[in-house]
Structures are given as structure tokens and as C-alpha cells.
């Protein structure tokens, strides 16, 4: 059974310039114990998708369509009588069954509260543990994420920790209630490479020991290759291709996926093959194209791509792609 199922999710933002269609008809699912990588460039809608699921959209953002199921329980705004009831329900789920790890650990931690207070908050909110028990649990979490001398460190404030250590604390907070699903939004982007390696290893260990599912949002294909079981590629507010890590890296179908793979270099390869960048820049989601979002940058664009969004072509139970090249029975590549 899927832990999370998202069907036809669309999210829009009202701005002074008009309506930004940040997420357009996105569907995917996350199975128990797997790591799903959500890959895309800035503005592709990957973070907004996650905020929509968690009910954390800013005031001008609205889910206009679609449903979200956590363990077959409908968690869409439309399933509740009012925004208020939806918010009440989400309060019991956020940090409990679903937890989130953010990109920038400094803006997520409260600078004027001790780490202990911040770690105990989700525990006290979601469980019936007493103060003392919650404090013990907080200490246990600090040990679990590998913070040295936790008894001393737990009494300190966020500014006394380095970036890597802060990210470990955020991870500890996310783990507080043994969530079924952890959403990690670019958890290592702000970190140095050697610290990134430490944090990724930690996320891997946690997934194995807790059997939680993880959605890893990133733009780094190297990170994805190393940690993810399945990958969804997002572009212009849509998921254009999904597949297992091997299917995406060794049998990419969508021109955008191929383009992305052409933009990265392998640090271990001996040949210095030239980079093949994707020309142009991503579409403006104030006026998203009617057809394929990748149209303007695609080297194989056809007339039909301009007016109609391609449907999904299924290659295997795990591998799907949205491109007109497949529909014509022609070669996609």
C-alpha cells in the first residue's frame, strides 16, 4: 500500500502580476520504505508540491484541484468542511505522521529557544509523554543523529551550532514522533560536500532503521543517484518522467531528462566529454504554455507540442514519460 498518494494536484498563487500556476496536475505515490527523489530546477514547482501536501502554503497560495491521501485517508482541503477543520486535522499530522526537513537550517530553528525546548515541542504536542520522558526522548534523538556530547549541547542555542550540526538537529526534530513519511526539501544544498556526505549517510541510516519513506527534493543528480530508489523529474509545474533510479539514468526517455543528464559531469570519468547544455530558460508560469512546458527548449519540438499537453506513456510498471515523441510510435531520441 502506498504511504502517500497524490492525484491531479494543482496549486496556484495570486500575485500582483497575475495567477502563477506553480503546480499543474501532478500525480505520484510513495511506497513504504522507499526514497523518492523529486528533481527539478528552481521554479519547477517541487517545493510548492510538498508545501501543498503539508498544508503549509503561504496566504496567497491555494490548492485549486486534486487530492492527497496519506494511508488512504483523504487529506485534501476539499475533503474537509472548512479551512479551519483542515488546519485542525493537519496540526495532528504535521510533525507526527509526516515531517519535513528544510533547506536552510538557520531560518527553521528559533534562535531564542534552547535546542531542548525545540526538540521537545513536537513530542509534547503529539504524544502523551510527560516532561521528563519527553526530555529523555529529546536526548535520545540527539544521540541518534550523531551530535557529540548531547547532554551539554541540548542546553545550547542554535547559533552555537555549525550548519551541519543544525541540519542534524532539524533531522532529529523530524524524527521525534517516528513519522511514516519524511519530506526533505534540499536538505544538503546549504552544506559543504564533506558535510553533505555525512548528512546523506545519516538520512540513509534513519530510513533503514525506522522504515520511514522519504521524499528527497533536490536539483543535484549526483545526490539522487546515490540515495534514491525512484525518481520523478519535474519541469514547469509538471512531472515529465518517473522511473527507478536505473531507468532514469540509463534509459531516460523525456528530452528534458536527457538534457539534464547532459549537463552534469562525472567526477570519476577519465574522458572530458563536452557539456551539452539545454538552451534557453524555463517557462514563465504566469502564462504557462498550453502544450508541453519544455517546448521552447526542446530540440525535437513538433507542431503538436505547442497546443496539446502530451499524455503519459508507460514503459514499465515504474517508468512513465510525457512526451509526444512516444505517442507517434516514433523513436524518442
Amino acid at each position: 500500500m502506498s504511504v502517500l498518494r497524490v492525484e491531479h494536484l494543482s496549486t496556484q498563487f495570486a500575485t500582483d502580476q497575475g495567477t502563477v500556476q506553480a503546480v499543474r496536475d501532478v500525480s505520484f505515490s510513495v511506497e513504504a520504505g522507499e526514497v523518492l527523489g523529486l528533481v527539478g530546477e528552481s521554479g519547477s514547482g517541487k517545493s510548492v508540491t510538498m508545501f501543498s501536501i503539508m498544508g503549509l502554503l503561504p496566504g496567497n497560495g491555494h490548492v485549486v484541484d486534486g487530492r492527497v491521501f496519506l494511508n488512504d485517508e483523504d487529506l485534501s482541503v476539499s475533503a474537509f468542511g472548512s479551512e479551519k477543520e483542515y488546519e485542525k486535522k493537519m496540526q495532528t499530522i504535521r510533525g507526527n505522521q509526516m515531517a519535513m526537513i528544510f533547506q536552510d537550517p538557520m531560518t527553521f530553528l528559533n534562535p531564542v529557544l534552547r535546542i531542548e525546548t525545540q526538540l521537545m515541542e513536537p513530542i509534547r504536542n503529539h504524544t502523551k509523554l510527560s516532561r521528563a520522558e519527553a526530555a529523555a526522548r529529546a536526548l535520545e534523538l540527539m544521540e541518534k543523529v550523531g551530535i557529540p556530547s548531547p547532554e551539554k549541547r541540548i542546553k545550547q542555542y542554535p547559533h552555537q551550532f555549525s550548519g551541519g550540526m543544525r541540519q542534524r538537529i532539524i533531522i532529529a526534530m523530524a524524527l521525534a514522533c517516528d513519522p511514516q513519511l519524511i519530506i526533505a526539501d534540499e536538505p544538503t544544498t546549504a552544506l559543504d560536500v564533506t558535510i553533505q556526505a555525512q548528512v546523506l549517510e545519516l538520512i540513509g541510516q534513519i530510513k533503514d532503521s525506522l522504515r520511514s519513506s522519504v521524499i528527497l527534493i533536490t536539483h543535484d543528480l549526483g545526490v539522487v543517484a546515490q540515495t534514491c530508489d525512484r525518481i520523478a523529474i519535474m519541469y514547469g509545474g509538471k512531472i515529465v518522467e518517473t522511473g527507478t533510479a536505473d531507468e532514469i539514468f540509463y534509459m531516460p526517455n523525456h528530452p528534458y531528462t536527457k538534457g539534464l543528464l547532459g549537463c552534469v559531469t562525472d567526477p570519476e570519468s577519465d574522458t572530458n566529454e563536452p557539456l551539452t547544455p539545454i538552451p534557453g530558460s524555463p517557462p514563465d508560469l504566469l502564462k504557462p504554455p498550453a502544450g508541453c512546458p519544455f517546448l521552447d527548449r526542446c530540440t525535437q519540438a513538433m507542431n503538436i507540442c505547442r497546443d496539446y499537453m502530451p499524455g503519459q506513456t508507460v514503459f514499465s510498471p515504474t517508468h512513465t514519460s510525457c512526451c509526444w515523441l512516444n505517442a507517434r510510435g516514433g523513436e524518442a531520441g
Partner: protein
Amino acid sequence: MTEPILQVDNCHVWFDIKGGLFTKKQTVKAVNGVSLQVRAGETFGLVGESGCGKSTLGRAIVKLYRPTSGTIRYKRQDITALKGEQAQEYRKHVQMIFQDPYASLDPRMTVSEIIREPMDIHDLYPRREREARVVELLQTVGLKPDHIRRYPHEFSGGQRQRIGIARTLALDPEFIVCDEPISALDVSIQAQVINLLEDIQKKLGISYLFIAHDLSMVKHISDHIGVMYLGHLVEIGPSRELYRHPLHPYTQGLLSAVPIPDPKRARERHRIVLDGEIPTPIDPKPCCPFATRCPKAMEKCFCAVPPSIQVDGRQVACFLYQEGGRAASEINIK
């Protein structure tokens, strides 16, 4: 071998932190004894994690900081003492591309004004020709001539970085310090900018000092690479050899931490995960900078700074390779 166009010898850049009523005066040793050479027409990649001093060194080279000691020689001339007109003349030859294309362009100037400004300052090209030169530069970096009247906010990150590059090229420099020019850009745009820099180098024969923390891109663009850690250059070598066969334990750990975009090899790969974090550069102990995190640290690593020596055509600052040292291959972790 051709003579180096830029030669840095034992360069130190230190910053004082003023002491207060109860605190002593402290010194941030951002760059602590770095020597390197860049040859004409080549790209020297400088890598390292944040706080290792790579940007400080880059800024010292373009004379934005003055070294505390040591020399920086450009075409045999020590530039650290240059003043007034001579300094101005030097800046014409050595330019810089900045990391953040959102912060490095004046939002109230048009693209034309931005690219013209260096020419106006240095009084290069007759006044009337400057406009034509701006258009030409825009085309060189892949922007359209009709972008000339626009303001920076009308452009995307990648396009802004192109404007920054055009401004840098306005003075026909011979040497460009690129300070993380792609780290603020998206993956597909990064490749565009890297290709652009490579094309420009091929066309104009400019030398680059390419500072970055993205190790795969650095390998792609550089001929030689220097690895920095806590103000020291721990290893310098030709890029391909350095990646294939890193000598210094820090280089080994750093390269092992770079994720590779290939799931099968990523699963099989044996990774060295370095413990701990980069120590503070405030009054560092006079020992090997990497000793606290090094999996192979010995007693003497905590007592003295290892000098840089030649091993297998490369420079390494590590006691493992010193005095009669063992063969490089014996020590390699991989």
C-alpha cells in the same frame, strides 16, 4: 615550459579582530602561506569548502585585499605594492567574475551602462565606438543587442551572469578570477555558462583562476587544480591525475564525498566519510590544518605544518609523503 603569468609565493592574508574589554585581539588567518602558479592560457581550479580561504585568495589577486605578507607576481611584477595609476593599469588586465549575479549588478543601471562603465573608467576605445563595443560584447556572451536598454531585474540568473561576464570582458583582460560563477545557477544553466567561459578562453586566450566548491565542474574546466583547506594549499596537480589518484588524505576524502551521477557505481563505491568539520581559522595551531579530521594523522602532524613537496609530479603538503617517504601508491586509501 612556458613562464607563469601569475605567480603567488607564500601569500598570507590575515584579518585582525579587535579585542574588547575582556577579549584578546585575535587574528583570522584566512590565507596562510599559499604558493601557486598559473600559466598563460590555462585554467587553474581552486577548490575547497566554505571558509577555506579560496575567495580571499582570489580577491587578493585582483587587489581587493592586500596580503599581510608574501608576493603576488603578475608577469614578473609584484602587484601587492602597486598604487595609483599602476594599480589602475593592472586592474585593466586582471578582472573578476562574481558569484552572485543578483548582487553584482547595479539595479539602477541599464545593461548598456553596466558594460560601458569599465571602458569609461579606463578610457578605453573612443567614446563613439563604446556603444558598438557593448553590442559586440553582448553577442559574445550570447545575449541579444536589443537587451541593451533593459535593467538587470528583467533578466534571469543565467542571463545576469552573462551580463557580468560581458562587463568583465569589456577591458580585454588577460586574466580573469572567476569566483564561484556558477554556484548560484540552475544545473542546466551552469553548463551554458561553463561552455561560454570555455569558448571565450579558446577565442581570446584568457587565463582563468576558477574558484568553486563544485568539484565535478572544476575538473571539467581546469588544467591544474589546487585543493585548499583552512588557509593552506594541501595539494596541487594536473586535474585528471589529481582526480584519478588523489594523494593528500583531505583530497581523498573530499573527492569521495562528491556524489556521482551514476546509480550503479554510486551503490558499489567505497566512500570515505570524513568526520567532524572544518576548524575555525581564528588563531589556528601551528600544525597540519587537517590533522584534527585526518584518518591517518600521526603524532608529528599535531606538532608542525608539513611543507609542500613534489610527489609524482605534484605538490603535496603531508607528512605521509615526507623523508624517504613511502611510495604514493602504498598510502592511497582507495
